[in-house]
């Protein structure tokens, strides 16, 4: 597996914490939302950074209690067509003002690269075989009709500003 960096963020290195394990002092750990909902402040204080492993079946309202304690989030796509993952990323950014890294894992496809970026994802874990196609997909479209969480202004708005989307579009993938 390799990591595709969509936004140029510094990707988080972390340990996937076993069910019965506790974080070491200062260690970055990723834990399921279910477990995090039951953990107390000492858990969060011990770990360096805590990330939530979020399945697409998670109700966004469950993130309310933990979102401000998270350093990063990993949204697991069980299938590329499970679009709930996109809404979960949007909710994290929009409803909870989450600023940390949001990573996508699972069988997402290269043609979703820009959709992920625009929904608020920073990084995607992909098979090495797909790396090139993912990177190619990132530079396909100069602009979109929606304002998004990748920092892009919509074409609808750009049409009525002096700068528009600029010559090369709104952003460049790093």
């Amino acid at each position, binding site marked *: 597996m390799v990591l595709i960096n969509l936004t140029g963020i510094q990707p988080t290195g972390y340990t996937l914490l076993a069910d019965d394990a506790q974080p070491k002092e200062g260690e970055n750990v990723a834990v399921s939302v279910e477990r995090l909902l039951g953990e107390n402040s000492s858990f969060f204080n011990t770990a360096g950074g805590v990330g939530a492993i979020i399945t697409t079946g998670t*109700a*966004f309202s469950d993130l309310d209690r933990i979102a401000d304690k998270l350093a990063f989030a990993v949204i697991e796509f069980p299938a*590329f*067509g*499970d*679009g*709930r993952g*996109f*809404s979960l990323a*949007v909710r994290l950014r*929009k*409803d909870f003002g989450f600023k940390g890294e949001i990573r996508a894992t699972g069988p997402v*496809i290269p*043609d*979703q690269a*820009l*959709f992920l970026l*625009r*929904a608020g994802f920073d990084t995607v874990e992909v098979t090495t075989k797909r790396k090139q196609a993912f990177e*190619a*997909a990132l530079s*396909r*479209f*100069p*602009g*979109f*009709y*929606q*304002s*998004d*969480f990748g920092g892009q202004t*919509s*074409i*609808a*708005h*750009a*049409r*009525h500003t002096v700068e528009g*989307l600029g010559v090369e579009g709104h952003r460049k993938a790093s």
Partner: protein
Amino acid sequence: MYAYDTYDHAMVNARVAEFRDQVDRRMKGELTEEEFRPLRLMNGLYLQLHAYMLRVAIPYGTLSADQMRKLAHVARRYDKGYGHFTTRQNIQYNWPKLSETPDILQELADVEMHAIQTSGNCIRNVTTDQFAGAAADEVADPRPYAELIRQWSTFHPEFSFLPRKFKIAITGAAQDRAAVKWHDIGLVLKKNETGEIGFEVLAGGGMGRTPVIAKSMRDFLPVPDMLSYLEAMLRVYNEQGRRDNKYKARIKILIDAMGIEEYTRQVNAEWEKIRHVPIDVPEKEVARIKAFFAPPPLAVSADDVAEVTELANANFIFKAWLNNNAGAHKVPGHAHVTISLKPHGGIPGDASDAQMDLVADLADAYSQGEIRVSHEQNLILPHVAKKDLPALWAKLDEAGLGTANAGLLTDIIACPGLDYCALANTRSIPIAQSITERFDDLKRLMDIGPLKIKISGCINSCGHHHAGHIGILGVDRRGDENYQLLLGGSGAEDASKAAILGPGFNEVGIVDAVEKVVAVYLGEREDEESFLNAYRRLGPDVFKEAVYGTD
């Protein structure tokens, strides 16, 4: 009509380049069919029974003459010389070669057309009243809003992988010609007490194996709030719609399960959070789009034109065509004209390349270069001066496009059925052909009056049988094609679900059954009562007796 700017052009061109790369990778074997499938579906490319099928969007059913010429060219150059206009204001080509589909899409992009989101679990082509901008009974032209939705929904970062496909329809008239109540979301333009324009919002309609009529969830949504409200509606559906069973994944099932009140509550709660975030486009953008749909410069003239009346009195067929196929325009002295793609014995919705070229020429000559496609699978010239009707009719009639049956029994909607479709259980087209041949008498058809027959070759109901005054549903009965008869459906503002009358028939029996149903209607109707009204008054029993006997 909307015209692309550099942004729109860049978008469709980028899409073509992307698809060309995907097809190349498939042809070289770098992508398996399994990997290629979701990619081609996102470009409207299906694999059907015999070949690939390409579905091209005709956004809200509006076409220019030049676009129609391009559709004719594609039919001639890349297909077998015809195209099929569908119930969702799209056109389908049934025989494209995979290797040539990127070229087709590039040719379409050159005339500001595309196949984006004509399939897949995303927001599909927004449909509307085929007479939009022309109908005399219109509150406002729905097309600027349809174009806004087209842009907002194109490659939406969050709503491109929904539980299931998603269909939005808008109408601007009280008489619903867009079947809005049969859509996932229906929008009805209206004026409030202060004269402001807004929408009634309906949700949760749909056909398929579980027919549901949409429920109203908001009586008046101001225009500037349209996109943020749609965004809230889609978000709640995307998060909570079922994904475990594709037959239970449409929004109608979610709304049935949670109730329209709870769905509305959740949507409103979400909308309160986002309504001030800049999802909705700037006012200037709405104005920019609206300007493209400014009414064409038609000169008001007298509605009574002597030449038209004289020809109608002398020629019954012209009189019938005038009566059935020409409708009231908002500008006096004009009409909107329905070009029937339902010749008796023909294939509903099919048009040859030559016919498409002719319609384009006639649009240039008589209709401000504008053409519409209806969900009833006909073509429309929206802005015809009444004095031009005799000449127009003569040219249409000569090309086999003058069938005077718009809105009548032989103006049948039929899905492609087992002649093309990989999902179908039965053929649909031959049933439509048999019925039109059985009722091949214009005087009899006009006596019967408005009657909508809709035929689907399987329970997915692409032929809208649930909404047919007479619906026909093909099912597989132990390997035989069997046709169920349904009565009493409506796709209009008085939407209703058709009910199965009784056991099914073979392909001959179903035509006999339709004839008996019509005979009962003719015998029982009161005054000017339409078939649908008569059925609603009489109930099914009298029809059942006639069709199945009394034993």
